[in-house]
């Protein structure tokens, strides 16, 4: 462990190296030199990111790579006499593998099998393999591949299924992976002295972490730890933020094109090529780094000035008089210039698409409704707008999003309105959607207000009474009182056009200021879940950079997923306060992917 330099971003790619090493061990253990690999499609992107492509697999003796098809259990795989399955520990996958093994055995094929489960072996999977009678014929292993470094400050587990599994089905199997990944970070970077759990799940993960850690004989050297603070954020503490329309560039890219494992794919309408182009989004790309966290209004201008810069570099060659200058230019600048040009044109194309989309339909009114819901104004108009949107059969997910927002900020929708919305929603989007309503109720995203059934006027009165969100809004200034300059923002609310500061990030800001929850009793009352902290290295006073203090590096772990807007807000907070933030999450989602994971699929 290197001595912690306060405020320096620790190198998260060390985690990638560890994962790679472990993968290497798994592939080569027990004399598995030349083998085929059967890969779970869900693992392809993370694996690509970790290993940097198929060459790593080839170097480790993988001959053929098959994709495990979840729907087709009949496929015959031919190949070598050794085979490694690299899969997520899921019951249906185990059954497919068991089918492979037993049918190959019955055909008399001699083969050695190893099943590597990512990130760990599960009791139920072993049970299935045993029941299917293949336990003796295969060899089980697990590989520590959980957090994938997507950038210098983003670690994602890339498990979007976490949200449904934990928040809808109450299946806590994946919590251990969260705790285990923190353990590994601590093994690399030292035990994190100050831990803050926002929400019940955060506390659970922390307790599980302590259990895994066990009684350590080594006394941790807290001041030397590279990370000074750990936030375990239960997604359940803030469902509002993921439902807000994103307006920072990176968030918009995710909304429009879907960012997967830190990569975005642009189609032919942007690239003017037949094949879609895949672009890695990361901070080494200077141009992208300059725009990713910006409010969309700035992005076009920045791209324009960037384009002019490039043009002037490009024009340089017109003035060449000597051949050597030209040679120099071709050798050094040309390639990068062309690459930057292509890159720039993609982002300009993406911006055009975004603008096109926003100009269609009633985007303005939609945003207005969203903002006034957050502010708690114009309730009647908002309800009317939602009703109209449903009646018009507007996009189902955006209708649902407004309903959820209305419910979250008002502690539920009044009974009568709730019933009307539900009926009309089912009539517009199919009766199967009552299952979606049921799911959302179970999670706490959408529900009717408690108490006896109200008539309309009384219902509206109920809407205007103090809700938890309304109190939180006041207590921690979620709605900025002054207007934010979106070009030179002075407040993190810029990530939502200055209309709202993400609750999750605002809480982090507050806690970090005090290094604890002092004076937050009022706030605690209105949060849907408990707070818990364990502070072992306080850093009072302004001179926080002195040795012996906790490093000014903060790991924020979102359990259940987070959005790019929240990442942007934390990066902004980092710039404001001098803290360095590393964001870890079970997955990065946007409103659509967030809601769709728990929605009933439409029938037609």
């Amino acid at each position, binding site marked *: 462990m290197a001595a912690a330099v306060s405020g320096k971003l620790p190198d998260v790619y060390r985690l990638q190296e560890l994962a790679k090493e472990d993968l290497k061990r798994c592939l080569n253990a027990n004399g598995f030199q030349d083998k085929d690999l059967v890969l779970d499609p869900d693992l392809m992107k993370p694996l690509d990111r970790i290993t940097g492509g198929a060459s790593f697999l080839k170097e480790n003796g993988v001959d053929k790579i098959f994709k495990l098809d979840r729907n087709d259990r009949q496929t015959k795989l031919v190949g070598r006499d050794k085979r490694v399955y690299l899969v997520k520990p899921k019951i249906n996958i185990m059954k497919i593998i068991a089918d492979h093994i037993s049918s190959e055995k019955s055909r008399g094929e001699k083969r050695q099998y190893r099943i590597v489960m990512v990130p760990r072996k599960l009791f139920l999977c072993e049970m299935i393999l045993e029941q299917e009678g293949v336990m*003796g014929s295969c060899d089980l292993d697990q590989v520590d591949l959980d957090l994938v470094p997507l950038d210098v400050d983003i670690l994602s587990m890339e498990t979007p299924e976490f949200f449904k599994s934990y928040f809808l089905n109450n299946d806590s199997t994946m919590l251990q992976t969260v705790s285990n990944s923190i353990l590994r970070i601590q093994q690399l970077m030292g035990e994190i002295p100050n831990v803050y759990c926002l929400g019940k799940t955060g506390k659970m993960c922390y307790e599980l972490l302590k259990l895994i850690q066990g009684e350590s004989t080594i006394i941790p050297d807290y001041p030397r730890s590279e990370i000074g603070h750990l936030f375990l954020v239960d997604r359940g503490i803030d469902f509002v933020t993921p439902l807000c329309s994103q307006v920072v560039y990176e968030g918009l890219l995710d909304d429009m094109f879907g960012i997967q494992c830190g990569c975005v794919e642009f189609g032919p309408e942007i690239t003017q090529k037949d094949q879609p182009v895949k672009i890695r989004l990361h901070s080494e790309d200077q141009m992208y780094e300059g725009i990713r966290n910006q409010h969309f209004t700035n992005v076009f201008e920045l791209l324009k000035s960037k384009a002019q810069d490039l043009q002037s570099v490009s024009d340089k060659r017109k003035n060449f008089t000597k051949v050597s200058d030209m040679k120099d230019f071709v050798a050094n600048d040309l390639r990068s210039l062309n690459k930057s040009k292509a890159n720039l044109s993609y982002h300009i194309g993406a911006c055009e698409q975004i603008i096109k989309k926003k100009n269609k339909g009633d985007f303005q009114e939609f945003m207005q409704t969203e903002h006034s819901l957050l502010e708690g104004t114009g309730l009647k108009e908002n309800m009317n707008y939602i009703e109209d949107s449903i009646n018009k059969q507007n996009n189902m997910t955006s209708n649902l999003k407004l309903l959820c927002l209305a419910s979250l900020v008002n502690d539920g929708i009044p009974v009568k309105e709730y019933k009307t919305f539900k009926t009309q929603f089912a009539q517009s989007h199919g009766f199967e959607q009552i299952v979606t309503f049921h799911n959302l109720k179970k999670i706490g995203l959408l529900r009717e207000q408690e108490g006896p059934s109200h008539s309309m006027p009384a219902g509206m009165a109920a809407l205007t009474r103090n809700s938890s969100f309304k109190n939180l809004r006041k207590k921690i200034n979620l709605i900025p009182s002054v207007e934010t300059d979106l070009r030179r923002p002075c407040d993190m609310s810029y990530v939502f056009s200055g209309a709202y500061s993400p609750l999750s990030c605002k809480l982090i800001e507050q806690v970090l200021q005090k290094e604890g929850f002092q004076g937050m009793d009022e706030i605690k009352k209105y949060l849907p879940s408990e707070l818990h902290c364990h502070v072992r290295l306080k850093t009072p006073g302004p001179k926080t950079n002195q040795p012996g203090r906790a490093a000014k590096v903060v790991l924020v772990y979102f359990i259940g997923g987070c959005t790019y807007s929240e990442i942007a807000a934390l990066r902004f907070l980092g710039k404001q306060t001098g803290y360095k933030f590393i964001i870890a999450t079970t997955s990065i989602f946007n409103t659509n992917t967030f809601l769709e994971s728990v929605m009933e699929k439409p029938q037609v």
Partner: protein
Amino acid sequence: MSLDEPEDDYWTASSVKSSKRKVNIFDDSVTVEAASDLAKFQKSFADDVEEESIGWGDDPVSSVAMTPSKDPALSRPTPSSSIKQDSSSKQPPASSSLPRPSFQPHYTDTSVPSSSTSYMTHSRSRSDVIVGSMNKMSLVKSPSTPNPKDIRVDSEPDLTSVIGNSSKKSDSKPLSRQEQQIQFLEQQLMLAKKAIVSTQISVDETIKRIILGQSYSLEQYKSKEDKLLLLDKAIASHDGNAIIAAVIFMKRTLTDALFNLELLRRPVAVDQYLAYLKAHYNLNAYANMLEMLNRTEELAMFKYKQSVSVNDPAAKIQRVKGCLQSYFEMSPSLQHECGLLKQQVSLLERQRPVDVGDEMIEQEGKHLVFRQHPRKASIINMPVITTLFYCCIYHYEEPENYLSSPASLRKEHQLTEKQYIWTAVRARAMLRRWPDIEALFLTKGFFGSKMKSVIGFDKVASILHKADAPPEILNKYLQLVDDVDRRLEIAQKMQCHDAVIETYRNQRDRQSLQTYFSRLKPNSREWYVAQGVLNDQTVKWK
């Protein structure tokens, strides 16, 4: 031995070595082993037999329950027989033609049952542990030492290490063998004595092993109290994997009544169990569990989801009806859902005949509207509003007693005026039937007829604009927007110049009209219109 030696050779070699060593140890440690074994049996065999005799049916079973064999005669095996079984159980991997890719103790456990019956009656007792550690030894000896992580020790670590050490020494220093053995035996005896007092690994330790992915055994937890403690500790650990392992173990080793009783007291375990049943497609058990838990709504939703998973409308109608009767109707809290499900049934019952009829009409090709706007898809399984749109396209004028008439659909589903207007305007605008749209808003009042709309004429105008309505139609509706500023705003956005010009004229706002005129394309139609208004002497400008 190098890594690339064929597996079979590897196995023969190592098993020969280990069996040799094994004879060594076992011969000497027979009594100790037997002592601890016997001690364990005396303690636990009685309930063991009883529990094993319970039929598990299709319940999930883990390693030990997989073995069908139980031979009461073997309840008290003589020490030597137990040992022999052990050593013979060691052989099969070597002699069998199946290559065994791994030599981990964990897997050996599961392969043993097929070859040795008496062995399994003990479940995972002490002798089991020895086999495990023997495996480890042979692995350690071979040059292809796997990562330490692979070796999962199935017993208290101290025991394993003792065996490992002593055997190594006895190999290298044959002269002091006797001495070594005495020492070893003494240690064994001590351990065995300790084992008699507490044969169990603590629950905490077991839970930790599950969480860490190390090998473990739950079979030692025979008493109900132990099982419950195991479950409670698992719940306290927050690890779903540990919880489900404990739950499944309890399911397997307690009567259904006891299992249910204890499970129901622990909501966290219940949820974990339900998640498992669902993932395992054990849907009947899942439904039964929900019923037992009295989670009416969840059960109803689950059943409903199942019943709408078919596409055939006739089957779907039957299923939803059945579901309504059995799961929704008797529950007062599901009254609202009940109404919606009834609507769904009635909708499907309507969609079928309409779809069949329209298909015939379309094929005949007599109806103009079907020729001009061929149906894109069947309406079956479409939502109510989509069906309404469809009916407004193809069956607009039909009287209410027709199944396919929009009016009858509206009545049946108690659609609001708003719902109806949004959809009807959209449909008729698509067909460019402007008079139909006007008729929708025309209300006869005391002083003649008046245009009135529940959704606001700005919204009507925007539907018409999307449908590419001609300017005069658009203008007509824009003029009905009361708020002048709003009217100007949307008229300009829609590029409906007539509406803008007319509004300025009505406002007598010459200045604004002048500005607007200057921005119009010279000599275009609207340019002339604006010019005409500006030159109109009859207008009294402000």
